[in-house]
Structure formats: C-alpha cells, structure tokens
C-alpha cells in the first residue's frame, strides 16, 4: 500500500480475496449483486473476530503478492494452506460458485466452534441464479436467465 493511501475496508479485502479465489474479476463479482450478501454471510457464520483475522492475513498476502507482481504464492501460504483459514476458503469458493453455503470442515469446527448458520443452505434464490459455476460452464443457471429460443443449437461460447 502506498504511503498515505486509505487502508482497504474489510469489505474491500473480502472482495479482493474473492476475486483471487474465484478467478472472476471485480466487475464480474459486483455484477452478481452478491458481494454484500456473501460478506454478511461469512461474518455471520465464522464470527466477526475470526473474519477480522482472515481479512488481516488476506490483506497482507494480497499486498505481498501484488508487490511481487504475479502469482498467488503469499495467498497460498498465508491463507489457503493456513489450517486456521483453509476450511473457510473452501466454503467461500463454493459459496461463490454455487450460491449455497457448505458447512465448514469438522476439524475447523472442533477448533473454532460452530454457529447455528453453519449448515448447508441455499443463501438466496438470487445466490442460486448468480452461481459462478454457470458462467464458468458457458451456460446459464437452470431455471433462470434464459438465453433465448434455439440458443442451445448454437456452438457453445467457450469454444475457442
């Protein structure tokens, strides 16, 4: 971070972290309209204290990786492989891709306790519709965002 710049807010860190974890850019994630919801979901489920820690580590790692210029080395080491956050990262990626929260791994819950919301659930109908998996597949969510009559006969968009 350059001298004098405002430190990023937790939600900005959450968004930057989500960009790296999902492979979708900031505009794509914002376009889903789900950033606020998922941010709140995460805070609710792992608690603000633990989320604060995650964001602290993530901010450092993101800054480190930015300094180096490429790669995810710091993020991998400090967050993804860090036993303290690994399970949260897994659930967060799935949340973005599938619109559902999947419970944290058992080991994580043993160490950190668990909240009542940490059960499998579809976060919202919009979350389902905005699941990144459909875009990744070059498709659209089943039962939403219809691509139009006969579109299925056309060559798929992901064909290069």
């Amino acid at each position, binding site marked *: 971070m350059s001298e004098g710049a405002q430190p990023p807010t937790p939600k900005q860190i959450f968004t930057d972290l989500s960009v*790296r*974890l*999902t*492979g*979708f850019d900031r505009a794509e994630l914002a376009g889903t309209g789900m950033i606020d919801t998922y941010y709140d979901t995460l805070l609710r489920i792992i608690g603000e204290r633990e989320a604060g820690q995650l964001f602290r580590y993530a901010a450092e790692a993101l800054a480190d990786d930015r300094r180096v210029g490429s790669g*995810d080395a710091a993020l991998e080491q400090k967050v*993804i*492989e860090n*036993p303290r956050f*690994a*399970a949260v*990262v*897994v*659930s967060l*990626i*799935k949340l973005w*891709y*599938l619109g*559902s929260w*999947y419970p*944290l*791994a*058992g*080991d*994580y819950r043993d160490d950190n306790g668990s909240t009542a919301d940490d059960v*499998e*659930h*579809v976060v*919202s*109908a919009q979350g*389902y*519709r905005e699941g*990144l*998996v*459909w875009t*990744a*597949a*070059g*498709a*659209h*969510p*089943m*039962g*939403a965002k*219809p*691509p*139009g*009559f*006969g*579109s*299925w*006969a*056309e*060559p*798929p968009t*992901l*064909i290069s």
Partner: protein
Amino acid sequence: MSDTPDTPDTPDTPDTPDTPDTPGIPELPDGTTVDGQSPDYDIVFVGGGIATATVAKTVVEKAAAQTPPVYPRILILEAGRATAMSADKYDTYVEAYQEAPIKVPNSPYPASRSAPQPDVLDIAEVPSDKGYFVQKGPMPFGSDYARSLGGTTLHWLGTCLRMLPNDFQMRTKYGRGVDWPLEYTDLKPYYERAEWDIIGVSANVEHQYYPIKNVEKYFESADEKKMRKGRYLFPMEEIPSSYLDDYMAKLCADLTVELKDDDNKTHTFPVRVTNTPVARNSTPTKPDYQVVGAVGNADRGTRCEGNSSCIPICPAQAKYNALKTLYDLIVKYPDRPLKKGEKPRAVVTVRSQSVVMSVEHTQEKGKKGTVTGLTYKTYYEDGTPAVPHTVTAGTYVLAANAIENATLLLASEAANNSGQVGRNLMDHPLLLTWGLLEDNAGAYRGPGSTSGIAAFRDGEFRKERTAFRVEIGNWGWNFPENAPYDTVHDLVGGGTDGQARMWGKELRDTLGAILPRQFRIAWELEQDPEATNRVTVDDRYRDRLGKNRPVIQYDLSDYVKSALPWAAEASRQLFAALGIANPVRRPVYEPGDYTHYDADDAAAVEHDGVTYWVRGAGHVVGTHRMGDDPWNSVVDTHQRSHDLPNLYVVGCGSMPTLGTSNPTLTMTALAIRTGDHIAENLSRKADQK
C-alpha cells in the same frame, strides 16, 4: 412392517355375471341419482391434472356443439392447492425451486400434510414407509407425482411421442403382455387432437425416424382438408436439436449397433439421432394456430426460451401444463349465474384443497352397481379442522392419476370385479449411462432433452426382451452425478484436510473445460404388465385426513431385466463411436465412460451377476387397465368402469401396456375419446328429458 394378506392373482369368478359386455347409456339416463334426487352436478371430476382438463374441455365443447346442445355443470375436486393459477403466485414456485437445496421434481411444489405427495428423496431400502408411499419391494417404485392443481404436468419434461402400432398388439405380435382393445389406427385421430387441441406439440414429421416401414404413413392424417393431401403437420415447428445432439449425430452417423440374442443371432440397429416431439411452444406451422402462453400472463411463454429447467418447473410456462387448459375452462365457463342476456353455457367449478376420500356406490361383489356420490374433505391449513362433504353427480370421473385412482377404488371396494384394480403397475425403468466427451459439446443449455434414438423401440427381439428408447440429455451429469454441484466439490475439494485443491482462474477454466463435455443418456426400458406389481391399501397406513396411503409392491420381470444387458451393450458401442470407451471415475476428469452402478444403491438391480441401477421415469401406468373382457380389465375402451357404468376411470392407469413412448400423449388421446363419449351420453340424456 408386516405384510398385508394378499388377494389371489386370479380374481374370484363372480357367481352372476351381470351382462357386463353390453355397454350402453348409463343406468340412470335422466341423470337422477338412485334415490330420485337431482344430482348436485352433471359431472364431478376427481383431480385437477391433464386427464381431467382434457376430458372436461372435450365434454364441454362437444356437448355444446351437439343437437340439441347440452351445457353441463361440472365440478373438479382437487386435493392440492391452486396456488399456480396466477402468474405472480406461479413465480413463487420458481423462487421455491431456486431456493431448494436439492432440486428434485417436486421441490417447487410444497406438499401439504393434508394432501401429501411422493418424493424421489424418500426412496430408501425396502421395506420402507419413509415418505408418502409405503414401499414393500422387492424394489422401490422410483417415481413421483405432484398433488397441486395442474398435477404432474407442472413438472413433467413434456416428451410427446405416439406409441408405435405394434405396441398395441404385444400379445399377438410377440406373445408378451396383453393386446389393447384398440389399435393405433383407432387412436390416430385422437392423437392429432391431443397434439393440436390440448397439448400443443412441436415437431417435424420429416425428422422422425422410427423402426417402422413408413413413418410418413404412420403420421398421415385422414383430415385432408386441414392437412394438405393428408400430410401431417404438428401445430408447431420442431424445437431445435441441441448442439450436443448434432455433435453426437455426426460421430454416430455410420454406427450400427449389433446385439446378440440368446441363440447367438445378431440383431442390427442403425443409429439415427431423432428430434423428439415435445409439449414446448415454438413457431406455429399454420397461421391460425393459437399458441398458449403462461396462465394469467398470456404474453409469456409463447416460445421456449431455453430456461433449462423443464423438470421441475418451466419459469415461462412455454412447456404445456394442465393449468393452461383448466384456466381456459374457468375463464370461459365461470362458476356464476348467467348474466341477463348471456347465452347458455357450461359451468366449471374448481374446488381445491378438497381431497376425495371415497367413492360411494351400490355395487356388490360380482355385480354391477351405480356410483351414488363422492365423499371429500376440504382442509384449510389455518388450524380449522377439515370439513367433510358429499357430492352427487350424473357421471363421475376419477382422474387422480394411476396410483391415486387405484387407491381410491380399493379403499372404496369399487369397480373391482376383475380383481385387476391396482395391478399391472408399470413405469419406464431408466438405465442411465454417462460420459465425458473429447470436445466441448455445450451441455447445460436448452430443454432437458431434444433428441433420442428410436432404433430399439421395436423388433422381433421383443419376444425375448423388452424394447427401449434412448433419450439424450442436455443437462450434463445433473441427473446421475448431481452436477455441476458435485463437479465443483470434486475440484475444490475440502474434505477432512480442509484445504482447497483448486481455486481462482484454474478452477474457472477447468470447470469450463469439463462441464460442457458432460452428457448422459437414459435408456428407457419398456415394462410389461405383471399382476404382482401393484398398489394396495392397508388401513394401518393413512395420511393426516385419514385417506389411505398407497402401499406398493414392485419389481422388474425377467423380461425387462433381459433388456438391461442389451441397453448396456448398446451404450458401450455408442460410447466407442463417440471416442470415449475407456472407463473412468470421478473425481478424475478425462474423456471416457463414467457409467457405474454400485450394489448398495437403493435402486440396484442384479441380473446375470451384473449390477445395474434403475431409476423411475415418472411414468405411472397401468393400475386400471382397459379391455373388452370385464373379468380381466377394469375399464372399457371409453375408460368406463365395467362394474359401475356412471363411473369413468381415466388416465395412464388405463393403459394395458406402455411401449416405449412417454405415456401422457397417449393418455390424452384416450381422454379425448372419453370426453366425446361422455358428451354423447349427455346429449342422449337431454334428448330423453
């Protein structure tokens, strides 16, 4: 769970056969009930699904067009809610589907405790009474249905194939099952009306390839005026085949599947990918065809827009559902007194949350009788207790679907001199096979299926094993592997070590490389009618209102099972032609054949030492079979009870055999024929007044 005493397979021969072979006008030609009172209605229907919608519409229109015209008063009793009748409420079903953690056919349609419905999530090791069905086995019956106004067409796929001529003559041609009392040619004009007047089917005759000599002749219409030179046109152009269908068609262009029978004789099946006729809106073939859009929102759903969720819900209602026909009826024939100057018309009343409990009648065992009324309970779900009612009519139509019709008749000890009520339960057992293609074929787009392969639908081999149809699925591995969910879980991982295996760009690109290459095929086996596959009732199993729950015994005959190795072998040859012969298993993802069947699955079937899984197709057929002989069939060719002449039992339950086509189109054709017949009888009654 203990067993109920079984009734013998061969029914008792009644002492005094009551000239049941002389069908005629109802025994009470003036429409009065036995005690001389005027009935509450001319016709009462049980169930608000496509069977009722079709009969009711046909009766109303036909009766009004007759001389003298007749305007029946009709009541439709529906067990479920009527929520989906308005467009905004229908949208809440769509929302419920999107929010459902597991997206099965019934997930958008909330069950009521007063009108419970079967759910595929309740399928478990038998015996089991986990869900609404009491499953006695040896196999679980794998299909469900919806109990809401609109019925199961709310979540059907909409495939609308006619049966093949030989399907009606299984006994004569192949020595299996039974013959129908009707032939294909008898039903053909009704198929046309079902396709045009009720469902609205999209297809082009020139792209239909069936294992029969002359497909054009098979479709040829007697209506030379409407169809130039009898050349049949479906009301709407075909729904385009998917990119995946075309991809397969190219790779299989020269494929002939060869299968050996028990005598080592080779049977050959030229594989041709065939566009499937469906109940989804497309472009009319004639300018005067009126496409029917969403209920209460006619501008929506006039063309399939590719929502890719026909099962369990079409958000646009571009797919036919019975609400469309019912809505049309209640708008045109409202339940209110005629206004001054208004032309006489029929009156159609729909009463939802009204569960029919029993059929009241005068029948004694072995004799004929009359239906004298229906008892039903209306429930409110606000804590108010359900209210019991009785209703009377000149004519009664049971159309609550095959399993419910049988349950009601058995609980009422009605219409069962033949002992066949509840028996011959059939479905299309599905053998799924699935693979990962070499190339991106654009999966997860378009309707559930747009094409199939018809080569195995008929042939001499049916003497030894049942026929099957091949349905190519467009929704990747959604059905067999709960993809794309499980694909994401496989790649991201987690598990006990709790660490993400893949994330970021790599995850996005890998999903993009895998998901569009997934495909599955359903090999839909014909099932033969067996007396031991049956629905019964047992007073120990009732729902909250006290209605009997269906108790089901179900298995596959050796005749069906013998088709399993053929379907599996045909799949292997097909996959080889697609270049994916090598077996692979998740979580590895590379081109190959992912088909596998584990023995511990609730739907596992063993045959010749090999394990298969067999899923249900939702095709609930055969519990009140039609026939000319009242001692081995329940209804006649008009679906009229042999025993209770003022009772019609309508639906897929009347089908004596089911061939390889999905049953609803055939059932609709039969229902139109029934509607015509009831209208004629109403006129005759009016004449005699």
